[in-house]
């Protein structure tokens, strides 16, 4: 087999794609382009074990499968442009890579707050370097921490900071409850209570208007070190460390100029193909795909299970096209799953709770203890979330089979 598949983005999605291309029978060249200097590593521990100092950085690296041993790695190299009509990708070293197949796996980067104020002391958590920098900041004695954004990463960071002994940890969010967007009100309230009982302070229903810095430093333009967070009602929360966990932005700029829908990640069809081109597929966080299990509306899913699921399907579709095989693949229909560890409790989710937030039922336990919550749409169970200890998480798993065999939801 001759020809080359270029994989852009050398993280979990890219690695799994390379492995699955081999598993699907591709024996041509695979070139992996990644702008981080590292081999692919596991991100979830960055806001948990790594930040807590319980996992050394070296423990995060994925072990690539033997079948992917001959992949050519171009690390520390960024894809800056693509010409899909000519089948080329341009790299930041000025070189141009021609390809027969292209896998888009460039993932997300943290969204930053645009409001004015100093930049030093403000952190995000996406990369190893981010987690290392934040850990250094959190372990300085007496620091006061403000986390902006009460989503999963913000709540994990707040919990880890308390666990590290940080005495003042405050989470700010314009929404009324933590994690309410994906999980709904009941669990949002239960999570708020648990965090507050463990010394995390919340300022909810309030946005951030800006940041205060060292006197003497220029008031704007990024000079100086942050000393406080200015809320939209004018209150100032003193802060030595600010963590911005306000969502993420897709790394798709390099794909511009090809007539693709890049409005939220990169739009794919039900086989993860991009722009009607069978030789281009997308995997992982960046892929906005319709899930045949649900309503067929294309969505991005930032769960750890998705890079592997998308890679398996996309690799089959791509290799079938490149080898001229007439494989009719069933449409992509993964069962999303995610977990989140905060303090000593775990959230474990199967399915798509976000689609069933208007019909939430307690399936087992109660919201003050271990609890299992069911999310329904049109009377059908579409997601379950467990909150509590390991037994609760395993309770959710018992509904997994039911979620898997349910008929597809229609819009």
């Amino acid at each position, binding site marked *: 087999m001759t020809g080359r598949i270029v994989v852009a983005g050398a993280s979990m999605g890219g690695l*799994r794609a390379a492995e699955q291309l081999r598993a699907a029978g591709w024996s041509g060249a695979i070139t992996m382009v990644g702008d981080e200097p590292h081999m692919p590593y*596991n991100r*979830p*521990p960055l806001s948990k074990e790594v930040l807590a100092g319980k996992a050394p950085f070296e*423990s995060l690296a*994925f*072990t690539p*499968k033997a079948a992917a041993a001959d992949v050519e790695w171009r690390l520390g190299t960024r894809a800056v442009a693509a010409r899909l009509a000519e089948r080329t990708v341009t790299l930041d070293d000025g070189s141009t890579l021609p390809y027969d197949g292209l896998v888009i796996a460039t993932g997300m980067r943290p969204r930053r707050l645009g409001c004015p104020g100093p930049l030093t002391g403000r952190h995000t958590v996406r990369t190893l370097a981010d987690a290392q920098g934040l850990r250094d900041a959190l372990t300085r004695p007496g620091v006061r921490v403000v986390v902006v954004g009460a989503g999963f990463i913000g709540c994990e960071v707040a919990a880890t900071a308390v666990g590290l002994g940080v005495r003042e940890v405050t989470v700010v969010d314009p929404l009324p409850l933590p994690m309410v967007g994906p999980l709904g009100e009941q669990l949002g309230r239960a999570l708020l209570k648990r965090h507050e009982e463990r010394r995390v302070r919340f300022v909810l229903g309030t946005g951030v208007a800006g940041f205060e810095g060292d006197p003497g430093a220029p008031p704007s333009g990024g000079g100086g070190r942050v000393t406080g967070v200015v809320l939209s009602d004018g209150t100032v929360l003193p802060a030595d460390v600010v963590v911005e966990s306000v969502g993420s932005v897709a790394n798709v700029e390099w794909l511009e100029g090809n007539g693709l829908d890049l409005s939220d990640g990169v739009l794919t069809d039900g086989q993860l193909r991009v722009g009607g081109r069978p030789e281009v597929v997308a995997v992982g966080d960046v892929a906005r795909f319709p899930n045949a299990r649900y309503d067929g509306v294309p969505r991005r899913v930032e769960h*750890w*299970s998705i890079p*592997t699921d998308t890679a398996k399907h996309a690799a089959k579709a791509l290799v079938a096209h490149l080898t001229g095989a007439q494989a009719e693949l069933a449409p992509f229909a993964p069962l999303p*799953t995610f*977990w989140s*560890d905060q303090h000593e409790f775990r959230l474990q989710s199967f399915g798509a709770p976000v689609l069933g937030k208007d019909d939430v039922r307690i399936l087992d336990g109660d919201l003050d203890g271990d609890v299992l919550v069911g999310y329904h749409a049109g009377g059908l169970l579409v997601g379950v979330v467990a909150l509590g*200890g*390991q*037994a609760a*998480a*395993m309770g959710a*798993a018992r509904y*997994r089979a039911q979620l898997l065999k349910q008929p597809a939801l229609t819009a």
Partner: protein
Amino acid sequence: MKVVVDMNKCQDHGQCVFAAPDVFSMDDEGHLVYVSDADDTLRDEVEEAADVCPLQAIRIEA
């Protein structure tokens, strides 16, 4: 095939149990138990389990 789980890493997520129920299971306390000398016919299952382990704690040796 020899299956090794790094029990220092494992946090009893149980994802491996869905992928390879013949090899991995949970005991009554919710802790992982597994067959370390699994039959070679189960290789695909075990590879899948290794892929989906959130802590990347599962290794296949030979």
